[in-house]
């Protein structure tokens, strides 16, 4: 377990005695400068650990210890009434893969589709706010954040109205025969959009869009507009200016945004429940019902563990590939 609270360690002294800026304790001690200095550095050395102690202790006890209990539960067996015993039953894991592999794949597929859609939708808006908005910039930023203040469940339910079978949107899509195309692709069924994969992906995209826009905007806003001028002066077309200047410089925002949308989307069960049917259930729905309805805790724990491992592997590989390790 991680215990960062180490106080007296000689090897530590050199490192800790030199905090970046001598902190808030320059209290002079009356009895000789040498002793005073030692007292001050001693206090300084403890300072970061004192600051860390409450928060880190909290996270260890309520974040790491629960993960241990979850791991233990995943290889236990028993029932709610009799209690659960550690029996090293690994079958929960193989069962999780055999029975629910399609839910895992569907989650990754929906979350991936939503992430790509978020990126495609968010980029023009973030670009507009960063470079084209002028004095409308703060208003647009407020409009991006504003939906957060209405409970996301209420907003997600509004999609039931927007995508309803005899609503304007679906009628429009039907007239343009777009639903025929999506139906061939297996995204919708008949003339309906609600209760299809398309509805779930629409909801996921909608829910996590701000998490893509804000980091994208933050990285675009930092780009010096003179770089665009320089590219133009060197006869770059708008397209190649974007491809060779803007896009590479906004990569940190793209990486942060894709992570902030993909991770929560992969574990979501709200959109699948509210906008989909049992054919669209994701792994989150399974964990939720195993835990809260069936009360088969070992299975729920095993699946939650697998989900965590899969996401951590994907995130690590992705960050390595994208080459930005200083995200936090």
């Amino acid at each position: 377990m991680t215990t960062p609270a180490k106080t007296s360690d000689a090897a530590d002294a050199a490192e800790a005695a030199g905090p970046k800026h001598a902190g808030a304790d320059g209290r002079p001690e009356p009895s000789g400068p040498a002793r005073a200095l030692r007292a001050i550095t001693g206090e300084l050395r403890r300072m970061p650990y004192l600051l860390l102690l409450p928060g880190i202790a909290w996270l260890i006890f309520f974040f790491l210890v629960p993960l241990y209990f979850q791991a233990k539960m995943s290889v236990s067996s028993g029932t709610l009434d009799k209690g659960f015993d550690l029996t090293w039953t690994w079958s929960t894991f193989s069962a999780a893969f055999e029975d629910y592999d399609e839910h895992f794949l569907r989650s990754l597929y929906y979350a991936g589709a939503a992430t790509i859609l978020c990126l495609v939708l968010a980029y023009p808006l973030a670009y507009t706010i960063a470079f084209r908005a002028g004095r409308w910039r703060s208003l647009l930023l407020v409009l991006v954040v504003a939906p957060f203040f209405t409970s996301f469940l209420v907003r997600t339910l509004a999609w039931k109205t927007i995508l309803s079978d005899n609503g304007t949107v679906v009628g429009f899509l039907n007239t343009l025969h777009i639903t025929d195309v999506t139906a061939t692709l297996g995204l919708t069924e008949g003339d309906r959009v609600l209760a299809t994969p398309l509805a779930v992906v629409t909801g996921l995209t909608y829910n996590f869009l701000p998490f893509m826009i804000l980091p994208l905007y933050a990285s675009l806003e930092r780009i010096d507009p003179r770089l665009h001028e320089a590219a133009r002066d060197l006869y770059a077309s708008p397209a190649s200016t974007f491809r060779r200047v803007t896009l590479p410089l906004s990569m940190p925002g793209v990486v942060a945004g894709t992570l902030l949308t993909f991770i929560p989307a992969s574990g979501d069960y709200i959109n699948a429940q509210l906008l989909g049917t049992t054919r669209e259930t994701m792994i989150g729905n399974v964990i939720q019902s195993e835990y809260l309805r069936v009360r088969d805790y070992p299975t729920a724990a095993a699946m939650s563990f697998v989900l965590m491992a899969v996401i951590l592997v994907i995130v690590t590989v992705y960050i390595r590939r994208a080459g930005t390790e200083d995200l936090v």
Partner: protein
Amino acid sequence: MLKWLRHNLVVFAGLGTLVYMLAPNVVVFVFSFNDPVGRYNYEWAEFSDKAWTDPCGVAGMCDSLTLSFKIAILATLCATVLGTLIAFALARYRFRARGLVNSLIFLPMAMPEIVMAASIAMLFLSMGMDAGFTTILIAHITFCVSFVVTAVKSRVIGMDPALEEAARDLYASPIQVFLRVTLPLAAPGIAAGAMLAFALSFDDFIITNFNAGPDTVTFPMYVWGAAQRGTPPQINVIGSAMLVIAVLVVVAGQIVGRRNRAKA
């Protein structure tokens, strides 16, 4: 003309995205004036201001709102204190285990919410703790801390240490330096972290759903239940009213900020 269109294509696409983002809010607002036929408020029937004149007219909803506020305020306070202390340690000191601390902060944000929800529920289960107010509060504080750390840390790193040195040179005591210089400088970061924590806690569903008892129904849980039982227009009223209040607060803050800047 064609050139103008091509030049502004990105703006039109951006505004299209904005429409996609705001459409549900418009629907929520419009349907708060609906008098639905049947239990669900998904199809327009006729105009009514019943829900606005009697927002607490449905059983349990306003109690759930009060509970959500209580939990969000307490969770914000605790998470802001814990997170701010960690942020100062990370931004101001070099120490061993720095990498470990950074990972411990990053990890809760790097896994789907449901993993944290299920694992912390299993801790309470193993400890024999009954799900209720306390378990929700503990879970909310846990996931809010990391976000506060991130918000405060970036602010503290950007602060000019010369200002605090100047205060010390002018014989300010350590406590005075902290209260009169450090804290006011860090305040925007702390406020941003606190606001984020409040928003996350108030609107959280997944973690709450795993750790709530039968008597602790927060507002998001109420809405979830309503989606199964029947949705009264009153939930649209609450959704719209909170948006209006929040936007008013933001606008007021901007006006005050502008006036202060004009004075300075």
